[in-house]
């Protein structure tokens, strides 16, 4: 059964996105790549927030926190703390540099086509890893609510992104992302407010999170700790992960955030270094609105799940739900909730009646009563199913679907821009075919965006076998942290860093990190073999130091960069100083 409200929200929001795309059609390469370099800092901040908050943030994060408790903090700190690094260390300087893409900076600063091409490979690698997660999110949202298959959902999503990314380029994407931010933040906070009121009596989720459970003197978190430990789970406010691992994962996510090409590229769209700093602040503000609500949503979701599912009497599909539920209630027992039955069809929830009593026992690994766990929920469904679990009105349920799609599509569009500009600008214009006219470059950019949409969709379809959306995305961060972050950072803060050092850093970073991840995730490596107990999600941080050290040593052993390059670095450190420097420009003057 497809709810009319869901169709209403999805059609309405998709209509808005297409409308914006037609209005914001890009006319020049500058508009296509960087929206003409004149986006207002607040608008750019909002677009960055939507670009940044992906299907992983929207769909998976609260669910992950619900099950990991304190362990979920790595995502909260990691995905916000990176903005401090971005604002202080990268964004203003890269804007002062004044070009279009991340490989542009690497190629010019390190006066090397080889470095540029490696940066293109890094950017493509990171973006494709990331986009698979987005397309998977689109598929999950569609298949759960709109009654279409997972693959058809991805095709619809692809078609929409295709229209506004290929037509409008960065300009179209920026203004669509603003609309998408509004949709997604509204969709996220409205159910959170309802849930917070129901569980803690406080309408502000951030305050409900630290408040008492409604009608008691016990704090909500203490009550939750008691509930989950009684069932044999780890205490909600602690974790089984080692401290070093928590540290490394948080750091890999932070440095990765600062090194992600689709985030960095957004700071090329504002008018000055000062605007770039402000824009990073606005971005974090808009992100924090969701990220400070997420832990509350996670805790409430866990509470609601245990309350409604544990010890409920199961009703099979062969029975009439309403009739049977009424009988169970009349017996003074709890029937399996209706939302559970509707989500069960998607395969995201599994119940296996191990002891044959027809009652759903939800237990942790060390259940004090020795009963085996019979219910296995997929973490991804939590945000989507939350409004139904909390028995919220139907218009809220539909809104959440639109929000999930907004989060996934806005991020996918941002990633497509990186892929398309890396191909048309960095590979074609700057490396293989420098005599291309602007018109030709635009056409190549549009074709590249179109091909990227198709590839992304296919990746999404095949990625359905991969683990949780958030974990897939975590790989992209390790790679960005170990390869792109160090070369950009050293390129700004260390004039002596040269071409050879940069190439060594990027190669070491991407090779070591991907080998570690591939070995432990796909080739049967076990947790016992992790180096110093650091999981593949956190290893990017360790290899970041390694790649930086290798790059520094190689730099010092080879000749210093030419004077023109050192002058270029000096220029981007001081706002308003940027001049053209012969070889550093490769025949292209910096943009205004």
């Amino acid at each position, binding site marked *: 059964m497809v709810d009319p409200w869901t169709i209403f929200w999805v059609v309405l929001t998709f209509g808005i996105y297409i409308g914006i795309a037609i209005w914001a059609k890009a006319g020049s390469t500058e508009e296509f790549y960087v929206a003409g370099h004149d986006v207002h800092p607040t608008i750019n901040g909002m677009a960055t927030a939507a670009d940044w908050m992906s299907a992983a943030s929207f769909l998976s994060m609260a669910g992950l926190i619900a099950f990991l408790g304190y362990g979920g903090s790595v995502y*909260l700190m990691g995905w*916000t703390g990176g903005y401090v690094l971005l604002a202080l260390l990268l964004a203003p300087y890269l804007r002062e540099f004044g070009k279009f893409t991340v490989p542009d900076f690497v190629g010019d600063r390190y006066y090397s086509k080889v470095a540029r091409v490696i940066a293109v490979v890094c950017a493509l690698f990171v973006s494709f890893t990331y986009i698979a997660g987005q397309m998977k999110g689109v598929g999950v949202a569609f298949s759960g609510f709109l009654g279409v298959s997972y693959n058809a959902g991805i095709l619809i999503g692809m078609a929409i992104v295709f229209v506004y990314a290929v037509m409008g380029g960065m300009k179209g994407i920026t203004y669509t992302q603003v609309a998408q931010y509004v949709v997604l933040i509204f969709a996220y906070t409205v159910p959170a407010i309802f849930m917070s009121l129901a569980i803690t009596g406080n309408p502000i989720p951030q305050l409900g999170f*630290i408040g008492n459970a409604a009608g008691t003197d016990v704090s909500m*978190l203490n009550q939750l700790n008691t509930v989950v430990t009684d069932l044999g789970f780890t205490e909600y406010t602690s974790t089984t992960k080692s401290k070093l691992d928590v540290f490394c994962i948080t*750091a890999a996510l932070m440095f990765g955030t600062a090194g992600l090409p689709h985030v960095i590229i957004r700071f090329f769209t504002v008018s000055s270094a000062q605007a770039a700093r402000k824009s990073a602040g606005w971005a974090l503000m808009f992100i924090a609105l969701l990220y400070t609500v997420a832990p509350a949503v996670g805790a409430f979701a866990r509470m609601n799940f245990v309350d409604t599912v544990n010890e409920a009497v199961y009703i099979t599909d062969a029975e009439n739900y309403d009739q049977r539920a009424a009988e169970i209630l009349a017996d003074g027992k709890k029937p399996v909730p209706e939302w559970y039955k509707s989500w069960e069809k998607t395969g995201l929830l599994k119940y296996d009646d191990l002891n044959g009593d027809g009652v759903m026992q939800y237990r942790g690994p060390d259940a004090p009563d020795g009963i085996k766990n019979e219910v296995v929920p997929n973490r991804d469904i939590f945000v989507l199913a939350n409004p139904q679990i909390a028995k919220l009105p139907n218009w809220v349920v539909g809104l959440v679907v639109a929000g999930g799609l907004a989060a996934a599509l806005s991020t996918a569009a941002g990633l497509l821009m990186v892929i398309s500009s890396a191909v048309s600008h960095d590979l074609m214009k700057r490396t293989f075919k420098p005599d291309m006219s602007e018109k030709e470059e635009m056409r190549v950019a549009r074709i590249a965006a179109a091909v990227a949409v198709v590839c992304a969709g296919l990746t999404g379809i095949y990625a359905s076998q991969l683990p949780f959306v958030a974990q897939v995305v975590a790989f992209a961060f390790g790679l960005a942290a170990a390869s792109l972050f160090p070369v950009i950072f050293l390129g700004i803060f260390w004039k002596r860093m040269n071409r050879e050092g940069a190439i060594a850093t990027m190669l070491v970073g991407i090779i070591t990190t991907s080998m570690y991840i591939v070995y432990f995730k796909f080739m049967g490596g076990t947790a016992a073999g992790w180096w110093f107990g650091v999981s593949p999600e956190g290893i990017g941080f360790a290899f970041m130091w390694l790649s930086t050290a290798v790059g520094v040593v190689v730099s010092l052993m080879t000749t210093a960069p030419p004077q023109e390059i050192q002058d270029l670095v000096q220029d981007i450190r001081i706002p*308003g*100083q940027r001049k053209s420097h012969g070889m550093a420009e490769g025949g292209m003057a910096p943009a205004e």
Partner: protein
Amino acid sequence: MQKGEVDLEPTNTHDAAGYWKATLRLTISLLVVWFLVSYGAGIIFREALDNFSIGGAPLGFWFAQNGAIYVFLALIVVYCRKMTQYEKKFGIEG
């Protein structure tokens, strides 16, 4: 004025070296705070801080899930303000 703080009186002279030095000092001190609230309060010293509480939440846990984010935001706001002041003082055209 406290020791170590940069004098913010506009000098109306273009001083790129002074600007860069002030920028580096500000960047480093803000990053120290950034490290302390996230890795410090939220991870390394979490157990110790969990003996205290903010509302009904253990303090270290709260820093890891909510508090650090508020401080991050404050850090960027401080950075933007100070940098604008530096640009005025050292005669840099933003």
